[in-house]
């Protein structure tokens, strides 16, 4: 299985679609460049088949970068198992902390 990202810029929003298997063997394919004028990143998981801890690590990198640049991050298209995984490891808590400006 493979992994790819599709990105599209609409105004100040960067849309990122994750497609396929996002794990240790594929995640190097995720190279996300965030243009200077972007104010918000929307990550679409609807076509993602699986994510492991390395994939979560890549997502966290995006979240940390967004936090440092005061950008909003929004997830969409999450299925129940991925949502539960993110709840368990604390991805949403980190997002809340960054968006609330705690860190």
């Amino acid at each position, binding site marked *: 299985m493979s992994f790819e990202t599709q990105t599209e810029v609409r105004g100040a929003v960067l849309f990122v679609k994750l497609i396929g298997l996002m794990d240790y063997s594929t995640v190097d394919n995720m190279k996300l460049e965030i243009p200077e004028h972007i104010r918000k990143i929307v990550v679409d998981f609807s076509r993602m088949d699986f994510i*492991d*801890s390395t994939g979560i690590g890549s997502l966290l990198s995006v979240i940390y970068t967004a936090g440092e640049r005061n950008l909003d991050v929004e997830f969409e298209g999450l299925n129940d198992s991925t949502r539960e995984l993110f709840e*368990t490891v604390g991805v949403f808590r*980190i997002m809340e902390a960054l968006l609330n400006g705690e*860190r």
Partner: protein
Amino acid sequence: MMFRKIMYHSHDESGSTPPFHTTLQREIHLARNIQMHLLNGEEPDLPYGEVTGVSIPARLIGGDYYDFYPLSNGKIRIIIGDVMGKGIPAAMLMILTRGAFRSAAEATKGPGETLTAMNNALYKDLRKLRSFVTVFCADWDPGAGTFIYANAGHNLPVVIRSNLREFKLPELKGVMLGGLPEQVYKEQQVRLEEDDLVFFYTDGIVEAQNQEGDMFRLERLVQLLMRHARESAAEIESAVIGAIHDYTKGLPQKDDITMVILKVGSEKTEISSFNVPLMRP
């Protein structure tokens, strides 16, 4: 300013340098030995019941971790964890995690404080490395029958009661180690009874894949544990490893497989499985 350059050379008797891959292989095997010895630590001596653990790395070395730390009054602190990533990088961080646990366990009163101290110790390094560790930590008091736990982003253990029904531990979530600074990890407490089984695990078990790419899944694990819950910890461990092997048909797995099995006993329980090797090749 003066720079000093140190170069290390290794030569065989003929004076030639061994090929790079030979040196690398040797070093990986040495690293594996170090990891096995550290994981294969002192066996806990419970007054009642038994506890055992096993870790099977997907590669030569892995990033999963489990450990036991004896406390006063016959209590024991148990931890299981999973470092982000695989192979050598994950193994290096696993050693870091182990050191943080050993130091924190010594100086803290409960599992929540232990995780807080571990996160305080590890946060800056993990953040810098863009990595994280999920861990579940529990204090088991065999005398009082209390099981107090805290969680940093890990899945909760499966508990099978002596009546062979699954008991869902009260939900407890906490951010993974390295996720956010200054985290305070809450604790939950339950009472365990004689012959209860607590099965700690990493996701390599439920995500083990067969040739069709289907996962072993939690439901299958729970059913398996219900069937074997009355057996000894060593027998349960063998049953789980056997079931995963049968399911995957021995297919190489992507993720490490690690479990810790706690069987609650009575005063009469023989601690018979303590000679089980803690780590398999």
